[in-house]
């Protein structure tokens, strides 16, 4: 039969275990608003029983461990969605900025092209009039300006995106270093069998932050983690982090290197992926379209211009400075080649009153001179493309934000601290503690009674 002393020990184990459990609740309540904190739960197990043939007596309770409640599969889904969200929000905000250049104003490219052709139509009504000729030159200058301004804005945006690439790589390096350090703390605690919940939470949060920057895969191994980018470039192995480097290309933009390999084009998600996509794909695409438009327009106008005669009866010369053969930089460098309005070749027969060539120039307005399209149709396509890309990116962003929100909601439903639950637990632990204390009092009474009994008999 079990002794009173043993019962006292059993009751004491209850006191200790409930105290520990209460400490867990206290910690949960204290961290109710800590971002990334996963609620902790005491793991209580019955102590090994004592067998006194033929009976078996329990020996109380042990607080075996304190475990953090989290779902690793959910965590990895959150990481993926965080990457997508980072990518699309960066891309979307870049495209929002880009598309502002293509809203209809008094000085946008579309309006300036319309005004240019309008000025030629006006000149056609009185081709020898110098003020109308000046009107054409001014309108041509405005066309050049609108292309120059838009192209410069795009380049500036590209430069600022490039700066973001460098900054984001810096942030990634900081986070991977932090994660490597946390890996060390987690494994040193876990190696001696202790709970590392807090460090795991911190590490998880750093990984979430890293996920918003770059596509990252997490490979868990014994008590530690290995992180690689989507294409396999190492970021963290155990307690070692691998820094990414940036290096300027001849164009002035920075490529991203890992262990000496250029991985720029392989980074496809996270904020860094979105930034690179905007810098290296979206903006160059729009720049190319503008170059095609500027070069096509300048070349077509020039070829009509040289086929006619100016006010003095001389053969016409280029109106726009001829763009480079490749068309590269045509929008940024478009400029008007003449300053004397009498040099506009409105005449088709060399007489000052002829408007035949002005009419030919006006007709370019509706001719397929830009990649098989009229200038306005082509420009309208440019506006559609940028609008479509911006709208798609925004839709992807809001979809991934919504999914991420749902996943975070799910994570919170598993790992979040509920004050109701903690209050209930507190009452439970308090009651159990009181009960154990009561048991000790009772045993005390019994012992006293036993001692009294021995006094009586002795």
């Amino acid at each position, binding site marked *: 039969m079990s002794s009173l002393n043993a019962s006292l020990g059993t009751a004491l184990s209850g006191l200790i275990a409930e105290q520990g459990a209460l400490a867990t609740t206290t910690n949960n309540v204290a961290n109710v608003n800590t971002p990334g904190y996963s609620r902790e739960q005491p793991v209580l197990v019955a102590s090994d029983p004592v067998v006194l043939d033929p009976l078996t007596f329990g020996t109380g309770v042990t607080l075996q461990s304190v475990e953090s409640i989290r779902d690793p599969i959910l965590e990895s889904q959150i990481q993926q969605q965080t990457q997508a969200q980072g990518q699309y929000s960066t891309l979307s905000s870049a495209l929002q900025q880009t598309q502002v250049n293509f809203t209809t104003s008094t000085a946008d490219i*579309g309006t300036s092209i*319309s005004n240019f052709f309008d000025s030629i139509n006006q000149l056609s009504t009185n081709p*020898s009039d110098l003020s109308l000729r000046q009107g054409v030159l001014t309108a041509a200058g405005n066309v050049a300006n609108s292309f120059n301004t838009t192209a410069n804005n795009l380049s500036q945006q590209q430069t600022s995106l490039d700066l973001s690439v460098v900054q984001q790589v810096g942030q990634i390096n900081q986070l991977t270093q932090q994660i490597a350090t946390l890996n060390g703390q987690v494994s040193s605690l876990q190696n001696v069998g202790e709970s590392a919940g807090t460090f795991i939470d911190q590490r998880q949060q750093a990984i979430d932050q890293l996920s918003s920057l770059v596509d990252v895969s997490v490979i868990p191994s014994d008590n530690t983690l290995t992180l690689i980018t989507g294409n396999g470039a190492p970021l963290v192995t155990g307690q070692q982090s691998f820094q990414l480097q940036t290096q300027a290309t001849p164009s002035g933009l920075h490529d991203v290197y890992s262990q000496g390999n250029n991985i720029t084009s392989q980074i496809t998600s996270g904020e860094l992926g979105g930034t690179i996509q905007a810098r290296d794909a979206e903006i160059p695409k729009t720049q190319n379209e503008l170059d095609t438009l500027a070069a096509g327009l300048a070349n077509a106008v020039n070829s009509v211009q040289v086929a006619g005669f100016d006010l003095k009866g001389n053969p016409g010369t280029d109106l726009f400075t001829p763009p480079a053969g490749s068309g590269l930089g045509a929008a940024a460098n478009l400029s008007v080649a003449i300053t004397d309005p009498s040099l506009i070749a409105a005449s088709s027969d060399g007489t000052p*009153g002829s408007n035949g060539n002005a009419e030919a120039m006006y007709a370019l307005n509706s001719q397929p001179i830009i990649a098989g399209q009229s200038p*306005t149709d082509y420009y*309208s396509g440019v506006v559609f493309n940028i609008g479509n890309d911006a709208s798609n990116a925004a839709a992807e962003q809001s979809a991934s934000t919504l999914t991420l929100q749902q996943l975070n909601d799910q994570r919170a*439903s598993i790992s979040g601290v509920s004050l109701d639950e903690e209050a209930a637990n507190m009452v439970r632990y308090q009651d159990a503690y009181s009960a154990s204390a009561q048991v000790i009092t009772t045993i005390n009474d019994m012992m006293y009674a036993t001692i009294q009994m021995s006094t009586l008999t002795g």
Partner: protein
Amino acid sequence: MRVNPNPYPDLLAAASQTQLQINMDEQEIASGRSVNLPSDNPAAAGQLVQNADQTSQTDQFQRSIGSIQGEIQNADSALNSVTTALQQAISLGVEGANGTVNSADRAAIATQIQGIQGQLLSLANLSYQGNYVFAGTANQTAPYVLDSSSPSGVTYQGNSGVNRVTLGSQFSLQTNLPGSQLFSASGGDVFQSIQDLITSLQSGTGISTAVTELGAANNYISSQSVFYGNALNQLTAQQTYLSSETTQLAQQQNTVGGTDLTAVISNLTTAQTSLQATLEAIGQTAHTNLFEYLK
């Protein structure tokens, strides 16, 4: 099932999403446009670019018509004066052909017709805003100059060039007739026939033939001058057409990119109600948990 104990981030995200919708609706109402950025509706944004270009072209065609009208009106009235002058010369010629008129009277009539000749010369050299209207495209110098060595008494210095001006997407108009076609056409040469009449009056022979010749020239130039009347009519018709096109383009612009106020205001009201509800939900969830009841 365990639920998310901290619904605030979700509620706040929902509130900010609704606030975004409210901002967009308000912007749409304020601007009167549903497409403020290309991404609002990419296809509509593309169409609006084309609409803006077509509207700009149509407005320009109206301005160009205005610029052309003056010159054509002047040309038309000049040609009317030419016809009047020619008819006057014909009457004088008929008078001179009468056998009862003596040579001194014929000389006086010839002098009168010389006056008309001068008038015709100045009409043929009509200049409008610095351009000689009947000079073809060589319009910076006077087309007709006196030339005693020429049988008609004048020389044509213009050319036979004509201009056409585009005044609609499918419409262009010839805006001038050269003097060579109006005054110096073979079989209807105004200056030749008036010179012949003067010569015949001075000599007293062939007056009737000269009058007939002048009559033919007058008929010819009258038939040619219909061109300007027609041109004016076509310009007026085109103005009407362009006005209706402007209206149509404005309607299209409104259909494609305008605000459907009823719909937007209804959306806005819904969004505002939803925002209010969300905020109230946040306010109410804020204070309840079990700790409150454990006393």
